[in-house]
């Protein structure tokens, strides 16, 4: 019931998330990196963004900075990362009100988290 943008260069992850989110009735917009994600955001309204951190071209950190600071969008963002410096990453994105989800993850948890975020967004 929501439009969700997935910015991720690892195609298997895009695919598995799409499967699960489709099943929960969401529509998926795909992007391979930050630049593409910003383009999709400009093209259509998105209710939630799932983004990887390490992506070729524009990475996830630059993307959320652009979303929050340049675009001024308050769209909820869920970040995924396989990096080992997760504490540092968490600190960097906490100021934007964004939570980090470490890889490997379980898709059901992601779905739950997305539902929670969407409800919170709707409530505000």
């Amino acid at each position: 019931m929501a439009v969700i943008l997935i910015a991720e260069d690892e195609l298997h992850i895009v695919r598995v998330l799409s499967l699960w989110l489709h099943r929960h009735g969401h529509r998926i917009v795909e992007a391979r990196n930050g630049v593409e994600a910003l383009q999709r955001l400009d093209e259509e309204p998105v209710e939630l963004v799932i983004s990887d951190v390490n992506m070729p071209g524009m990475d996830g950190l630059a993307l959320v900075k652009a979303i929050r600071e340049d675009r001024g969008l308050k769209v909820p963002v869920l970040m995924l990362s396989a990096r080992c410096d997760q504490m540092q990453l968490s600190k960097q994105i906490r100021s934007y009100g964004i939570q980090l989800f470490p890889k490997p993850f379980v898709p059901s948890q992601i779905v739950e988290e997305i539902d929670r975020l969407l409800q919170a967004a709707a409530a505000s």
Partner: protein
Amino acid sequence: MSFKRFWTAEEVPRWFGLSVVLIYLISLGAVGYLGVHDARLRAAQQYRAQTAYAVELLASRLAAASREASDALAVPGEAEAATGSGDARRTPGITEPGARYQRALREFAAQIGTLELRVLDGRRRVLAATDTLEIGSTLPNEATGPWPPTALQVTETALPGHPESLGLYRIPVVRATRTPAVTTAVKSGGKAEERPAAAPTAPLEAGADAEASGVYLEAIVPLEPTHGLSLADYSGGLALGLVACGALFAVYRALRGQLRGVVRIAGRLQQRSLGIEEDLRALCITDAKDAATRAWNQLVELTASLQTEVERTRANGELSRVLERTAGQGMNEALNALPDGIIYLNNEGAIQYLNTPAGRLLGCDTDKVKGITLVELETAGEPEGGSARAGLLRQRLVAMIRQNLPAEGVADAVNQLLEVSELNSSYRVSIVPLTDARHEGECVVLVRDVSQQLRADRAREEFVAQVTHELRTPLTNIRAYAETLSSGMFDDPKVVTECYNVITKETRRLSRLIEDILSVSQMEVGTIELVEDKVDLKALLTDGVRDVRGLADEKNIDLQLVLPAKLEAVQGDRDKLAVVVNNLLGNALKYTPAGGSVVVGCQLNHNELVLTFKDTGIGIAPADQERVFEKFQRGNDPAVLAEAGTGIGLYTAREIVRRHGGDISLMSKPGEGSTFIVRLPHERSRASSLSSVAGA
């Protein structure tokens, strides 16, 4: 005066010396007195002997005169001739012999030095005398000795007006017919004819008895010489005494002089021990005359100059000089041979020493900068003939050292990392304060170039981060797809198949990655072993290309495999060679943008098999072309860093090829693509295969 003062005060030796001289003089006086006394006795004895001899001589002349007189009586003419002088004749009452005696007395009186001299007969009637008034008179016997004398008789007597002791000498000239011992017998009718043959018989006058027949000489002479002892008699003793006294005094002076020097030195030392004198030179004895004092002064001078030297060395803290003196050039060379820079600073921040590596780091001549402060060095500008690079490093280094100079009383060393990003270099700077009180405020700075070490550390950290990321990516896929399957929510057979495929593929990816990491560690410790077998290169390349076909399609890359019609099998480790193919293909696909192409070729060239992996990717800058084969190293291009990678793929590939006796080279232009060329020796593989066939 205490006993201590007795030995240390300077006047005591004088007192001591004077007492010695006094004792000597007393002894000298005693010896002199005894000597004089003895001389006097001996002179008196000699005088008496001379007198006695003279008296005896006179007596014999008188005896001769008596004989002449008796001869003249017999021959009157002769007697007249013998009494030529008219003295006796003019004197009334003088007999003929008397005149002769008187003449003899006159001749001898002056010679003997007598006071009185007379010739008497047995009745003491004066026959002749120096005092002519006495002639003819009879004198009483006043002396203690018996009369008439039989031999030379000396008795002491006195004369009015003569205080000195006088001797009365009596000697017979002509003996009486009887000896005096028998005088009484003669008186009582002894024979006058019986005369000793030795003495002449006196001419007997008519009426004269035997007693009166003798003639005797009587002389009063001083017992001792009237002139006394002259200075000459004492001169020998006096001269000896004076010489001895002088010598003693000289010895005393010399000894006292030496002793005085020692006493003064002792006094100075006592002052020093009491802490009165701080300046050593004040211990010098100003009017040094003796050897001990002069030697002392020399010693003090030497010590003072040494002390000055030591203090100057301390004050300047010239470690380098001390090092040069104590350890010679060897120490300096040892310090220069160290890779680390060593700078020794005094408490004013002035450079006292720096070794050659430190000179290189600061871009300055080690000899010229000694004594220059850090502030001066910082503001000195560009080093002479040095590069901007050296100037920058000097500026940063000096600034860091100055900021971290130890505060007063701080004993802890400061360790700082100086990163000069412009030079892509890092230095570990340690500032060690000297805790020794003599080197207060001084410090030694050690500068170590840790650029290489730091780069290696960072590469390793990066590798760990990359490996973590690389491991998590397939794990994420496996876990996500496994949960998709197990959730039971997706029963579409197509989805199920897809899930299995992904899980299988990602598991292989994971295992390959782990293999790579293991290979690296094996290659690091040198335990990697090739499991050799016949390898069908055609199959190897075909499988490798098939594995990445999916990825190439995803990225829309044209992937081609160009093989010759016939390709022999080679000897080698199939799995490891598969890793080489996979790594090179993966690398080509990873850095080739969508729409590009990757061509894999193989050909037999002389005795080697040449595999080529040509892509139209981003290319590799010449500076990075060697580095990409190093462990954990990747190109510095941002496009490379944007891709995930551990930096072990090319390293592993090259190591494996080298184990097979070949090598990998690279031709690349940034923006145009790269070609990796793998050369495997064909001869070796043929020989190996033959031997393995023969062995089989």
